[in-house]
C-alpha cells in the first residue's frame, strides 16, 4: 500500500500557554485508506503527544470526532485523506468555545438537548401488567428518521444562525423534540412547547439548510424544524390543541 506525505495544519489552543488559538503544522505519512482521524492519532502517538482530540468508535456511530476539515464540519473518522489535496486544515467545531486544541465545550449543546425533554411523556403511565405500548411500522416510520441523530453537533457547527445567536436551541435539539412529538406513544407535546415557541426556539431558524447538508446520519433536521414551525404556529394560534396526536 502506498504511503503519501500529507501536511496537516491543526489548530492548537493550550489555555496555560496560548493567549489565542494558533495553527501548528505536522507532516504525516498517510496510508491510502486512512481517514483524518487516523492521521490525528498518528500525530498524537508518534509526533506530538500533547495534541488533544475526541474520538471513540472510529466508524461513524458515536458522534465524538466531529471537527472542521478544510472549513467544513465532518466526522473525521469518515473523512478520507485521499479525498483532499494539498494541505489539510483541521480545526475544532465552529460555534462552540474551545476547551483545548480540537476539543470544544459541549455543555451548552447538551443543555439544549435536555431542554426539549427528549423522553416519552405520558399523562398516566401504563401499569406493567397492561402490557407494552404497541406501535405499528407506519407509526414508527413517522419519526424514525429523526431518531437517528448521534449528537455529533456538526449541524450546530454549520448553522449560520448560531454564529450570531448562540442561544438558538439548534437543529439537533429541535429534531429530537420533534421526534418525540411525532411518536405515537408520547403525550408530552405541550411540555416541549416552551422550548420550541420562544424566539430562540424554532423561529430563529432562517432556512439555511446547512444542518441537513452536513448531517452524517441523514436526519434532515431542517425538515424537522420546518414541520415543527408549522405545528407550533397551529398550536400557538389555538388551531390545534397542545397535546399528543394519537
Amino acid at each position, binding site marked *: 500500500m502506498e504511503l503519501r506525505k500529507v501536511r496537516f495544519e491543526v489548530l492548537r489552543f493550550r489555555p496555560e500557554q496560548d493567549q489565542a488559538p494558533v495553527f501548528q503544522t505536522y507532516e504525516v505519512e498517510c496510508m491510502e485508506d486512512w481517514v483524518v482521524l487516523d492521521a490525528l492519532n498518528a500525530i498524537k502517538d508518534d509526533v506530538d503527544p500533547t495534541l488533544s482530540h475526541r474520538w471513540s468508535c472510529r466508524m461513524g456511530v458515536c458522534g465524538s470526532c466531529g471537527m472542521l476539515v478544510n472549513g467544513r464540519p465532518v466526522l473525521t473518522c469518515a473523512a478520507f485523506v485521499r479525498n483532499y489535496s494539498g494541505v489539510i486544515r483541521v480545526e475544532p467545531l465552529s460555534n462552540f468555545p474551545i476547551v483545548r486544541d480540537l476539543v470544544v465545550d459541549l455543555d451548552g449543546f447538551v443543555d439544549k438537548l435536555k431542554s426539549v425533554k427528549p423522553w416519552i411523556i405520558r399523562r398516566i403511565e401504563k401499569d406493567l401488567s397492561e402490557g407494552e405500548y404497541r406501535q405499528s411500522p407506519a407509526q414508527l416510520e413517522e419519526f424514525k428518521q429523526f431518531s437517528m441523530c448521534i449528537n455529533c453537533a456538526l449541524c450546530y457547527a454549520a448553522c*449560520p444562525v448560531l454564529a450570531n445567536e448562540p442561544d438558538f436551541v439548534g437543529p439537533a435539539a429541535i429534531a429530537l423534540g420533534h421526534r418525540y412529538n411525532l411518536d405515537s406513544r408520547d403525550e408530552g407535546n405541550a411540555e416541549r412547547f416552551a422550548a420550541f415557541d420562544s424566539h430562540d426556539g424554532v423561529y430563529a431558524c432562517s432556512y439555511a439548510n446547512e444542518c441537513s447538508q452536513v448531517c452524517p446520519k441523514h436526519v434532515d433536521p431542517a425538515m424537522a424544524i420546518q414541520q415543527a414551525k408549522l405545528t407550533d404556529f397551529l398550536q400557538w394560534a389555538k388551531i390545534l390543541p397542545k397535546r399528543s396526536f394519537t
Partner: protein
Amino acid sequence: MSAHPAAEKTRTSPARAPSGFPFGFSRYRNYVLFAATSVFMALGCIGLLEGLYALSKGPEAWNAWLAHMAQPFDLALSLLVLGFTLYFVVRFGWVGRKIGAGRIGPLPRPPLPLPVLGLAPLGGFVTLWLILLAILGGLL
C-alpha cells in the same frame, strides 16, 4: 453545568464563526443571496405601488409612469428584481417542500414522494403565472 461538580473549568477560547460565513463558501453565499431576495422583492412591491398610485391619478399619470419604467435603468432594475424573485421562488419552494414531507400534528403524511412534491409546486406556480399574464395581457 458540568459532568462533575468538583471539576475545574479551564479558560476557554471564544466560539469561532463557521468557516466561510457569509461570503466565503458557495452554500453560505446562496443563503445570503436568498435573504437578499427580500430586499429586491420589497423594491418590486414599491414599483407596483408606484404604478398603482399613477393609475389612480388618471391616464396621463399612468402613461407617464409606463414611459418612465421603459427607461433603460428602470428596465434593468425591474429585470434584476424579477431575477431575484425567480431565485426566491425556486429556493423557497425547495425548502417549503420539507414542510410537506412528514406528519404535521394530526394531518397525515402526504402520499407523494418528495421529488414530486418539489416539482409540483413549481409546475403549479408557472401555470398560475401564465394565467395571470394572460389576464394582464387581455387574453383572458
